[in-house]
């Protein structure tokens, strides 16, 4: 029998792209284990090098950067409008929040005020995206614990949300819907009616998850008192978002420094008790419920009116004017080819993304392209602090802890 040979066309030495922080553990008999970067439970692309003493993790070295796609350098080459698709792909689970946070940063630089309808619609869609992100996070982390049914339920309802957003924006996952000065298009007919249907179905599905998970012996054993962190520690290590709120601190940008229409909404900020994995799961579930409550209020509060602000500097003129008037044609041409003229200055705008504080630091020297574009991504900062959640616990606890931290590769590595 002849042996089949492997594909030997590529003969390459494989250099190790990282240098680990330690070669041996604290004790001589510690075992060094490499988890990732191609691993089902690391949400894509994180490498964790752990020194183990039996099953207990002594020391851990987290390596990110395997999805560094050069976002910041890429954006310096594109106009302020052109780079909105790149911004989308930061936290791809909740693409709309990235869009709106970026657009608000540029609108601050340009001193443009968005219309009331746009403000309320952006708030509604931000909360809708938050639901999609939390659904994804909870579904993935439950699946990694073995709860396949919960994953299938949550992905089902998430799929309804995706199809619904595809009705509005044209895409299921990466929307590119925000525009500087407004939004790409207005709501189609029947969109709000379908939204109400989806919110009702959401309650049915999430009720099932609560029934399956909340008092489940196995789930509680695996997540209670695992990955515990205190509030002071969390703030020191830069945690924001549901992780910080699970420690008991009600710190939420939507309440502390209201932006968009959050100041007019009535909602609670769910907090946890101990700062462990169970609390993070429960904070996310409750945040989804609060988001649904906010969306229901916003559907009633949504005013009529234009979506885009009537400002030549950033809003594209209507197509029928572009084709008939020369001024609109030139305006359209300049906006597309050169980009909106943003005055010189710098701004830092932060929104409460599902993972924490998502900040955009933009530096403009006038003109249509950014001079410097920096994203303060919550996942990256969390990766700096996640060793506090992993060290001292067991190897098998890395999986639920990582799931509860919700590291999104696109946001962490940009």
């Amino acid at each position, binding site marked *: 029998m002849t042996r089949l040979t492997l594909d030997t066309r590529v003969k390459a030495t494989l250099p190790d792209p990282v240098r680990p922080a330690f070669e041996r553990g604290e004790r001589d008999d510690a075992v060094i284990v490499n988890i990732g970067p191609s691993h089902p439970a690391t949400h894509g692309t994180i490498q964790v090098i752990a020194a183990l003493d039996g099953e207990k993790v002594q020391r851990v070295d987290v390596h990110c950067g395997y999805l560094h796609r050069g976002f910041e350098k890429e954006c310096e080459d594109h106009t302020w409008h052109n780079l909105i698709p790149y911004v989308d792909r930061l936290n791809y689970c909740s693409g709309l929040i990235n869009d709106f946070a970026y657009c608000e940063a540029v609108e601050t630089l340009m001193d443009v005020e968005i219309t009331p309808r746009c403000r309320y619609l952006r708030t509604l869609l931000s909360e809708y995206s938050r639901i999609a992100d939390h659904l994804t996070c909870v579904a993935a982390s439950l699946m990694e614990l073995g709860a396949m049914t919960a994953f299938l339920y949550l992905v089902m309802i998430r799929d309804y949300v995706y199809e619904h957003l595809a009705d509005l924006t044209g895409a299921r996952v990466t929307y590119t819907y925000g525009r500087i000065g407004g939004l790409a298009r207005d709501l189609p007919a029947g969109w709000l009616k379908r939204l109400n249907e989806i919110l009702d179905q959401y309650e049915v599905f999430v009720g099932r998850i609560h029934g399956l998970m909340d008092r489940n012996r196995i789930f509680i054993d695996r997540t209670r008192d695992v990955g515990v962190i205190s509030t002071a520690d969390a703030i020191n290590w830069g945690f924001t978002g549901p992780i910080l709120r699970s420690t008991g601190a009600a710190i939420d940008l939507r309440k502390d420094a209201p932006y968009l229409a959050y100041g007019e909404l009535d909602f609670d900020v769910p907090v946890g008790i101990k700062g462990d994995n169970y609390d993070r799961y429960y904070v996310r579930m409750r945040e989804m419920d609060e988001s649904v409550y906010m969306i229901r209020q916003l559907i009633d509060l949504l005013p009529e009116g234009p979506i885009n602000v009537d400002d030549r500097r950033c809003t594209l003129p209507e197509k029928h004017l572009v084709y008939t008037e020369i001024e609109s044609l030139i305006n359209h041409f300049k906006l597309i080819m050169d980009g909106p003229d943003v005055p010189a200055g710098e701004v*830092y705008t932060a929104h409460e993304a599902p993972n924490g504080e998502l900040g955009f630091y933009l530096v403009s020297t006038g003109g249509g392209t950014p001079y*410097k574009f920096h994203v303060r991504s919550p996942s*990256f900062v969390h990766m700096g602090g996640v060793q506090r959640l992993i060290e001292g616990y067991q190897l098998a606890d890395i999986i639920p802890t990582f799931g509860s931290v919700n590291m999104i590769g696109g946001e962490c590595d940009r």
Partner: protein
Amino acid sequence: MAAAILALMQQRLVPAGGEASLSHGMLAVVVPPTDLLGAVCRLKSEFAFDLFLDVTAVDWPKRTPRFDVVYHFYSTTHRIRVRLKTRVPEGEPIVDSLVSLYGSANFMERECHDMYGIVFRGNPDLRPILLYEGFVGHPLRKDYPKLQEQPLVPYRT
């Protein structure tokens, strides 16, 4: 309330010869690199800026000093943000590290070092974090060409 804190900060933090400005509602203070650690200590202890948000750098190739290292802080009690800037030259891009004050400074300073080459004196671990071992250069500097790739695996022909 926020305005009072900002006024107090502006009065106390700006050293002789420093600058402060209000940029779109956020106080931006420029300090010389030698005063950086002291200023951040005071921000943390006196003004309760407990959350360290971000450190990044801006490259102005035609200006001396070349780099602007930019810090953002947030106070969970007063609910305001502040921006701190310091300027370092190209030949000696060294600033003090904030790892002794904030744990989150570790990763963020590593990223700034990766992208711009700013050396954070006191950071125990300045390995590449977003880039890989063997990557030559600092990509976010203006003189690094965007398309210059440094592959680790030879391409198939």
